[in-house]
């Protein structure tokens, strides 16, 4: 991969990380009046997948969709404005953190219903096929979503119709406090793919290069009409399931497990790789950080200085004209 793309992925991961940390810091002021599910630690998945997508490709996310929105190129100002539930938000203050969208870059909205976006993304892929265009859809979902019937129904249909959709399972091993072990008899979601007659891969979701490589192939398959792929990315969330709490220790996730994954920080690993290969230097890193910090600053200013919706808008958009 040429260094331009490598740096772009690095920047995306950094952007996700810093945005999430900023949200984490601001949440305590109770101005962000919406549930938040942070993606810190899982940055490589969204970054590695979306680097291979075109602007007009579709993605669908879940309750935890900040990373995907950012990686796909969603408007950051509008994202922050949405978190602050402003009229200028990407969902006009009606969606909040769990329901980000940006039509211009193919983000048609994320669902907070576990497994809910899997059929929707399969549907946009069906549309691409029926319309004869080569737009690809990527559906991001968690290991918990693989429990739902929609996973089975959708993958079966996509394989049957050879739809241009890539199913990306962000397996962070937990659904809230419930470990995958408590929900699946086997621990290899990717294997399920094979029975539907589609390729399935289980990869290191904290290795952005591996993610990018598998995603590239899967997306290429879609464009050439060969049908869907399931990619199970093993990763880990650093924060608790929801909000800004931590959930490590007694009754929660084991400290050793947590420490192990922290040591496998996707950004640390990737930046080391980039440095070893002379692609990333101190100056470059600083300039990227600076640019991001400014972007975030501006976005926050934009958000906090934006008007909230007015009560008389309540009944708007129940129906489209």
């Amino acid at each position, binding site marked *: 991969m040429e260094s331009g793309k490598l740096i772009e992925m690095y920047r995306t991961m950094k952007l996700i990380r810093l945005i999430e940390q900023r949200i984490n810091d601001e949440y305590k002021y109770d101005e962000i009046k919406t549930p938040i599910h942070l993606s810190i630690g899982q940055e490589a998945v969204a970054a590695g997948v979306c680097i291979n997508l075109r602007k007009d490709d*579709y993605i*669908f996310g879940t309750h935890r969709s900040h990373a995907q929105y950012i990686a796909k190129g969603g408007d950051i100002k509008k994202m922050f404005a949405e978190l602050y539930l402003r009229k200028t938000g990407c*969902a*006009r*203050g*009606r*969606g909040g953190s769990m*329901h980000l*969208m940006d*039509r211009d870059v193919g983000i*048609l*909205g994320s*669902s907070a*219903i576990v497994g*809910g976006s*899997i*059929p*929707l*993304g*399969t*549907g*946009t*892929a*069906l*549309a*691409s*096929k*029926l*319309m004869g265009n080569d737009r690809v859809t990527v559906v991001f979902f968690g290991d918990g979503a693989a429990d739902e*019937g*929609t996973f089975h*129904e*959708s993958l*079966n*249909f996509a394989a*049957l119709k050879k739809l241009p959709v890539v199913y990306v399972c962000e397996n962070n091993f937990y659904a809230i406090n419930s470990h995958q072990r408590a929900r699946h008899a086997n621990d290899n979601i990717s294997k399920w793919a094979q029975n539907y007659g589609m390729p399935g891969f289980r990869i290191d979701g904290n290795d952005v290069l591996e993610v990018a490589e598998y995603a590239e192939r899967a997306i290429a398959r879609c464009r050439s009409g060969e049908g869907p792929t399931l990619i199970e990315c093993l990763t880990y969330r650093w924060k608790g399931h929801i909000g800004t709490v931590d959930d490590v220790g007694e009754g929660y996730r084991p400290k050793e497990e947590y420490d192990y994954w922290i040591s496998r920080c996707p950004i640390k690993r990737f930046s080391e790789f980039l440095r070893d290969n002379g692609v990333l230097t101190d100056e470059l890193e600083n300039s990227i950080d600076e640019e991001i910090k400014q972007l975030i600053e501006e976005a926050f200013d934009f958000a906090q200085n934006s008007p909230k919706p007015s009560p008389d808008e309540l009944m*708007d*958009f*129940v*129906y*489209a*004209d």
Partner: protein
Amino acid sequence: MPWTTIQVEKLDNFFIKGDSAGDRVMTYRDALHEAFDQSLARDPRVFIMGEGVDDVAGVFGTTKGLKEKYGAERVFDTPIAENSLTGFAAGAAMAGLRPVLVHARMDFLLLSLDQLVNHASKWCYMFGGQVTVPMVVRTISARGWGSGAQHSQCIQGMLMNVPGLKIVAPATPYDAKGLMISAIIDNNPVLFVEHRWLHKTTGHVPEELYSIPIGKGVIRREGDDITIVGISYMLVEALKAAEKLQEAGISAEVVDLRSLKPFDEELLIKSVEKTGRLIIADTGSKTGSVASEIAAFAAEKAFHLLKKPVKRVCCPDTPTPTSDVLEKAFYPTDNDIFNEAVKLVKE
């Protein structure tokens, strides 16, 4: 052969008069078929999917031959997976297509409410109108010949509580064609409620493409003494009852709302203003029915126009029994409407 056909074939043909100009008579089933045919021809974004839509039976004849005419990409069979199918339709709609999803029985709609209610119906609002979900979900309620508890439900009452969803329930061939075209043109999810016993109903249907505004009802029969709202198939029973009532010297006005959500409040109020009495006949179980919603509306908005209590003529609050004897006891008829009307007018 679907068993309800045995039942439906036994029904005598009911003709709906004066519904439209012209003298072109066709069945409800054929009117629907024409709506699909013309919509598929008119708009390349329209496609039809569902269990058996492309087979020889063609969903009781309503989609027969359309695959041959428009191709397997626009009229296709699906796996049996109602919830995800609804999501596929919603996703395709978000991407710019106009899917028509068919459930051969309304009972199967219950498998799909996550995608219909949590997703399709909320998307437009949740994203401030930036994404629309123009899709049609067709459901057909069966009745008779031991259809039983799982193959005869009329649960339109449940769906009334869903914001963002439109619901239509045409009872005449003219409305079936016009409202199907409207539902396909509409930019929102529309639940299209059919009743198997209406498929055979005949009436005048213009050949050209036409639409009927969703939310507008019609007076099917003018009257002064009592207003009878007949929902879906119960419109037929209501019209039969009105005929008998006339012989009994009672002039009944029969209102066909056609659209259930939103429904034509003005038309209803106007009629009650004239008659002061209201009966609502619905095909579903009484509690939580569409009849309940209309009765509640009347109690709120037409209270001072009412001279007598509102009456709901619906199925009792039991699952549908299979026994022919119990089926007979379960389903309300024109006689039930007649008797209630007489009570309200004479007492």
